[in-house]
């Protein structure tokens, strides 16, 4: 019973190779494709959850209250069907539909890290919808935190777009100016200009502000701490400056609660990005 050399070699190859072969076979056969995601961000009371329920139900949004956890739903969008420009496409059979997840995040200040964590962790983020309450944006008390949140989001996306490596991606942003049906609502252009002015102000004050605790002396002035949003050194911030990083920012008006102007514009924007 003395096995010949080829038998030993073949045996060893078989024993070592079998697990690898099995793994390759299994990993190729199972197609775990995660559908793309669209994130809903924004301060509390902007209408994120209401928009989510509107898209899901197709008829009317459900009553909502302050969210505490992120929640995702599954939706289908298409760019070539009959009802492509409307979210009421639940029983539309024409065209090709793409499945995607719409992820709602809590907007409360204390839970913002949940939302930002979601933005950092979610795979295949195709677009970010940042909801603002256009009716309340005229007041400084609402505008300031809204802009601060938007600043954080844009800065995160900018870092992601400029980063080198695997997770480099440029994600378009839609600023959905909600509650256009209300009397005090600002028109979309005003929403845009208000936010731009406030963002320039935040950018200026951040650049002059104190360092964060935990930043050591040797980190000062390094690339990572450099948090300048948009075109460096520019006086005024405009959303166009984000184009430098391939981040397309658009402001579209709409309202969740009423038919007119409705949410179709937002839906079409999302459908095009999926």
């Amino acid at each position, binding site marked *: 019973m003395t096995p010949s050399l080829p038998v030993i070699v073949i045996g060893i190859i078989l024993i070592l190779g079998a697990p690898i072969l099995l793994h390759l076979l299994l990993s190729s056969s199972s197609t775990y494709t995660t559908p793309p995601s669209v994130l809903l961000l924004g301060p509390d009371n902007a209408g994120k959850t209401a928009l989510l329920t509107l898209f899901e139900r197709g008829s009317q949004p459900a009553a909502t209250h302050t969210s505490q956890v992120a929640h995702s739903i599954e939706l289908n969008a298409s760019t070539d069907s009959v009802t492509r420009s409307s979210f009421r496409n639940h029983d539309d059979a024409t065209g090709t539909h793409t499945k995607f997840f719409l992820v709602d995040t809590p907007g409360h200040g204390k839970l913002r890290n949940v939302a930002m964590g979601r933005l950092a962790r979610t795979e295949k983020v195709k677009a970010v919808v940042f909801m603002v309450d256009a009716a309340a944006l005229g007041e400084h008390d609402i505008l300031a935190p809204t802009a601060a949140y938007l600043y954080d989001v844009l800065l995160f996306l900018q870092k992601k777009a400029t980063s080198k490596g695997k997770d480099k991606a440029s994600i378009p942003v839609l600023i959905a100016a909600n509650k256009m049906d209300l009397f005090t609502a600002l028109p979309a252009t005003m929403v845009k200009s208000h936010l731009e002015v406030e963002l320039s102000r935040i950018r200026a004050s951040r650049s002059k*502000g104190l360092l964060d605790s935990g930043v050591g002396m040797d980190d000062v002035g390094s690339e990572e701490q450099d948090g300048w949003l948009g075109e460096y050194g520019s006086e005024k911030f405009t959303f166009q400056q984000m184009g430098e990083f391939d981040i397309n920012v658009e402001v579209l008006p709409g309202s969740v609660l009423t038919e007119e102007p409705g949410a179709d514009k937002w839906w079409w924007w999302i459908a095009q990005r999926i």
Partner: protein
Amino acid sequence: MLDAFEVLTTSGVVLWSRSYAPVSPSIVNNFIADTFIEEKTGSIAPSDSQSAATNPAYRSDQHTLKWTFVKELGLIFVVVYRSLLHLSWVDKLVDNIKTIFVELYGEQLTKPHTTLVECHSFGEYFDQQLQELDKSSTVGSINPIDDQGSSRPSAAGLTYRGRTINGGAAAAQDTTSADSTPVPTPNASRPSTPGVVVAKAGPVAKMSRRARKAHNSGSAPASSGDEALSSNRQKKSGKATKKGRKWNAEGFADEEDDDVQLDYSRPSLTSDSEAEAVGRSSALDAVDSSTWGSTSKGKFILKDLGDEVHDILASAQAQKAQKSARSETKTGLLGSGVNAISGLFRNVVGGKTLTKEDLDKAMKGMEEHLLRKNVAREAAVRLCEGVEKELIGVKTGNFESINAKIQSAMESSLTKMLTPTSSLDLLREIDSITSPPATSLRKARPYVISIVGVNGVGKSTNLSKICFFLLQNKYKVLIAAGDTFRSGAVEQLAVHVRNLKELTAREGGRVELYQKGYGKDAAAVAKDAVNHAAQEGYDVVLIDTAGRRHNDQRLMSSLEKFAKFAQPDKILMVGEALVGTDSVAQARNFNAAFGSDRALDGFIISKCDTVGDMVGTLVSLVHATNVPVVFVGVGQHYSDLRNFSVKWAVEKLLSGN
């Protein structure tokens, strides 16, 4: 009476609600923010098994909210009523509704990627419970003005992925609740127009019988078509949800529908008035009315519904008892052995459902770790209790040990606690006060910051650090010497001002000292300084105060007057990182010292460079007061002031020893 009852998820969607009086949604929003997000009520993370009676009621100015919470499903049950009323049965109502709702719709809630829960028919169960518990109340007062399921009806027959979400379903709900529930309320005589909410219940309730008759016969044709649908639907949903119901007249009901329905109003009317006369119907009643021949399907349904509800409640009770019994009596030797082995295995592999016993030891370790990081005992214990309650019943992930799970839960809990509710950009706040936008009608005035604290924590030092930071941003700063007590305090500030002047001469800022010598009333000095600054066009006033012992009532009481006189925009308290357990009492007393309508706005944690990783004091301070940390002092120089970064603090707190 009740004002509203709502069933909502933690993701913010209202699944089912009924309101009897208009309730502003902001009441429930505030309740959620205060109780669940900011945890202001002092209760630690709400645990699952608690009933509404043990959960502290939330009070807004006019309303009282009672609530209960189902953790694994993320469901919140809230009832809103006027604070004037003392409704003893509300706790029981909330608990029973919780049990019933979870039993009926719990399965639907576990589905991922959807917010749809079909619970239109829940109204019946709710009515039944309300009837049963609220015997004391007058019948006429229960007129829902709005009753909605998860999806409100729009166009009839619209389907979504094979599920009927409106139209027929809503009609079914409406007809069943209107016709077949013989609750002796005016509700029963409500016209069953699908999807249209009855505008005002009051007039309907007061309508004469004739008018009501007209009303009903008028609506009869409309409802007749839906009736078959409704019974069909009931059968359909009966499969999934209505276990244990005895359909003693199932076929009967089906046949009768169409022809009886046409003059449905008449029998239902008689039984209605009958019911009104007798009061709540019993089983005996039902038999009686059937022998009369004026059978309304409603009778049977009421009886069934009541039985069903009782069944659900009883089985829930039994399950609970069984569970507790099981936990006491251990299974046999073999069983326990297998359990132990699989438990050990799961410890390593993950996928283990955590119980209190599993967590106990690991939580002790975490508590000790926090204590070692200089977190006050009180804060550490409460943090750990919160995390423990959050984790009980949670499954660990793949290859995730209990310790890793606790670590991550503690991290998120600390992050949530330390993250401020609103942004703390000091420069922007100063700008908005000193140069208000033209559209607002405020006048420009100096921004007033005052600094308080215990003796020797570094009030004057931190004040001059803030001053240096402001001067670099080209503000004109006035420093007011509010310490009129300790000898040398004014001179100390004068030295700081002289240094700062020299340091920032080139930067373009301007700083002056405002002082009135010793022995004067500090509050008056502060007020004069603010007036002086307004006249001279300063941007910021920094007020130093005398250090005081937090448990000396005499010294602390002068702070209230100080806050009233100087009207500071920001009151910052300086706390040492060195102090241990006493920090909790310090923070509490200072926070309460400024009167009922003013509190601290932020903490400055000084001497952080002297403690290394042991930054637990800031957790104790924030924990005790819910006031955010604004600045951190990290050295001896004017430039050694830092914005507080939550990530940094959490990393330090959880880092190994």
